[in-house]
C-alpha cells in the first residue's frame, strides 16, 4: 500500500535541485500565461515549449504525460462535445444528423481545453518534481504558518492510513453479517456502523497525536531549524523576480487588450 498521497518522483535532475520557490514561481508563471494569454493557440505553445521541456529536464516526462493525459482527457472531450455541438447560433461547419459543429463553439473549446491543460500540467509538474516537505519548509521560512504547513503534510500521509482503517472496520462489520452491497438504501444503512467507530477512533488518535506533537516541542515559540537544507542561488532569486515581472506584464497586457477598444471608442 502507498504510504503517502505525494506524487513526488525522486530524481537527480537540475529541475529537482531548484529551490522550491523557484519551481513555484515557474508554475505560477505558466499558470498566468495559461489563463491570461489571448487567442486560441498560445496556451498550447506554453504547454509544448515550457512545461513539456521542463518535465523532460526533470526526467519525469513519461509519467508526467500519462498523468496530464488522464486528468485532462475527460474534461477536454466534454468541452469539445458540449461547446462544439451546442453553441447557440454560430456558423455551422459540419452537419452531423440533427446536430452541427459550430465554428465559434469549436474555437471556444480549443481555447478552454488549452487553458485547462496548462493549469493541470503546471500543477502536476510542481508536485512531480518538488518534495512536499521542501515546499512547506520554503514557505514556512517566508512566514507561512507552521501549523498550516503541518496540516498539509500530515494529511498527505495520514489520510491513506485513515482509509486503511476504514477498510479494516468495514471488513470487521461485514464479518459480523453487515450488508454492504445492494441498493442505495442498504449501502447508506451500512455507513452508520462504519462511521461511528471510525470517528470515535479518530478523535482518540488526534488527541494522542496532539500530545506527541507537544512532546516534540511543536508548540514552542522561537526560531526553528531544519534537517532539510534548501539550496538557493542568486541566479534563482533573479529568475524569480523576472518571472514575477513577467506575470505582471502578461496580466497588464491582457488588461490593456480588454480596455483599449473601449478607450478608443
Amino acid at each position: 500500500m502507498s504510504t503517502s498521497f505525494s506524487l513526488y518522483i525522486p530524481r537527480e535532475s537540475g529541475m529537482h535541485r531548484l529551490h522550491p520557490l523557484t519551481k513555484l514561481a515557474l508554475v505560477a508563471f505558466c499558470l498566468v500565461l495559461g489563463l491570461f494569454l489571448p487567442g486560441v493557440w498560445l496556451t498550447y505553445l506554453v504547454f509544448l515549449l515550457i512545461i513539456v521541456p521542463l518535465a523532460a529536464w526533470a526526467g519525469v516526462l513519461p509519467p508526467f504525460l500519462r498523468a496530464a493525459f488522464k486528468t485532462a482527457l475527460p474534461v477536454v472531450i466534454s468541452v469539445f462535445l458540449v461547446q462544439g455541438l451546442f453553441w447557440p447560433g454560430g456558423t455551422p461547419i459540419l452537419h452531423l444528423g440533427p446536430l452541427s459543429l459550430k465554428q465559434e463553439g469549436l474555437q471556444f473549446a480549443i481555447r478552454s481545453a488549452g487553458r485547462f491543460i496548462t493549469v493541470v500540467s503546471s500543477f502536476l509538474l510542481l508536485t512531480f518534481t518538488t518534495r512536499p516537505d521542501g515546499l512547506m519548509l520554503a514557505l514556512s521560512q517566508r512566514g507561512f504558518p507552521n501549523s498550516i504547513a503541518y496540516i498539509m503534510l500530515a494529511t498527505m500521509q495520514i489520510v491513506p492510513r485513515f482509509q486503511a482503517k476504514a477498510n479494516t472496520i468495514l471488513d470487521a462489520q461485514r464479518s459480523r453479517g453487515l450488508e454492504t452491497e445492494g441498493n442505495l438504501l442498504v449501502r447508506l444503512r451500512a455507513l452508520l456502523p462504519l462511521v461511528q467507530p471510525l470517528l470515535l477512533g479518530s478523535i482518540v488518535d488526534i488527541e494522542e497525536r496532539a500530545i506527541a506533537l507537544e512532546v516534540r516541542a511543536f508548540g514552542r515559540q522561537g526560531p526553528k531549524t531544519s534537517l532539510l537544507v534548501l539550496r538557493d542561488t542568486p541566479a534563482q532569486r533573479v529568475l524569480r523576480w523576472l518571472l514575477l515581472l513577467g506575470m505582471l506584464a502578461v496580466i497588464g497586457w491582457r488588461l490593456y487588450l480588454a480596455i483599449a477598444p473601449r478607450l478608443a471608442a
Partner: protein
Amino acid sequence: MIRLRDVTYFYPRATTPALADVTLEIPAGQFCAVIGANGAGKSTLCYTLAGFVPHFYRGKLSGGVEVAGVDVPASSLAKLAGHVGLVFANPFNQITGARFSVREEIAFGLENMGVPLDEMEARVEDILGFAGLRDLAERSPFALSGGQQQRLAIASVLVMRPPVIVLDEPTSQLDPIGSKEVFAVLRDLAATDAATVVLAEQKLEWVAVFADRVLVLHEGRIVADGLPGDVLASADLTQYGLQPTRYTQVARAAQAAGFRADRHDLPVTLEEAVEFFR
C-alpha cells in the same frame, strides 16, 4: 529530580480522584517502574509528570509537582518539551506525519527547538545507532513494524535529551518480538544512567530485570514502593489486581509443596529462579 507532594487529581467531571495523596521522590538517574492494574492511575501519573495533567486534560490538580527543576503546574507544555519526554502505547499515533523518513522524523523535535544543523545531524546519527534504526533511516515512518515504530518514538524523544523520560506502557500494543526489541532499547537506556526514567508497565518479568525501583499504584494511591525483588515477590501483589511473575508463582507453588519452605526471598527473574531451584 522528580518531586511530587500530596498530589491529588480529578479529571474533568470525575467524582473519584485518578491520583490521591501521591507523594514521591525519584532521584536523578534512577530507573523507576510503575505497576498496577488497569485504571490504577499509571497513565495519569505519567501525564502528570509530563505536564499533560493539568495543561492538556484540565481537571483539578492539587499538591506540588516538580520535574527536572520545573514547577510543572505553573509551567506550560511548550516550556516542558525538552525537559520531560513522553512515550505512550500507540506507536502509530506518535508519528508526526509531517516527515517522510525515519531520520527526519527523529530530527523533528530538534528542529522545533532550533538546534543548529551540524549538532542536529550528529545527535540524530547517534540515536539512530542507539535505537537500532540506522538501516531504516531512509524509510517512511509509516512503513515500519509496530516495534520499529515504537523504537522510533523512543528515539525521537531521546534525541531531545530530556533529563526525565516517561514511558506509558510502551509495549502494550506490540507483538512479542516488537516488545522484545523495545525492552532491549530500554535496557540500554537503563544502563546509561543519562536520564531519570519512569516506566509504567504491565510486563513484570521485564520490570524485574532492569528497574532500580518499583512502585505499585492501586486506585490512585501508591501502595508499595521498593526494590524490584521485594515488591514483585510480595504476597500482596494479587490483591492489587497484579499477577506475580511466573518465576515467583512456580517458587510459591513449590514452597506450598514443602520445597525450601524456609526461603523468604522468592525469585522474580529467570536467574533467581535457577538459583532458587538449584
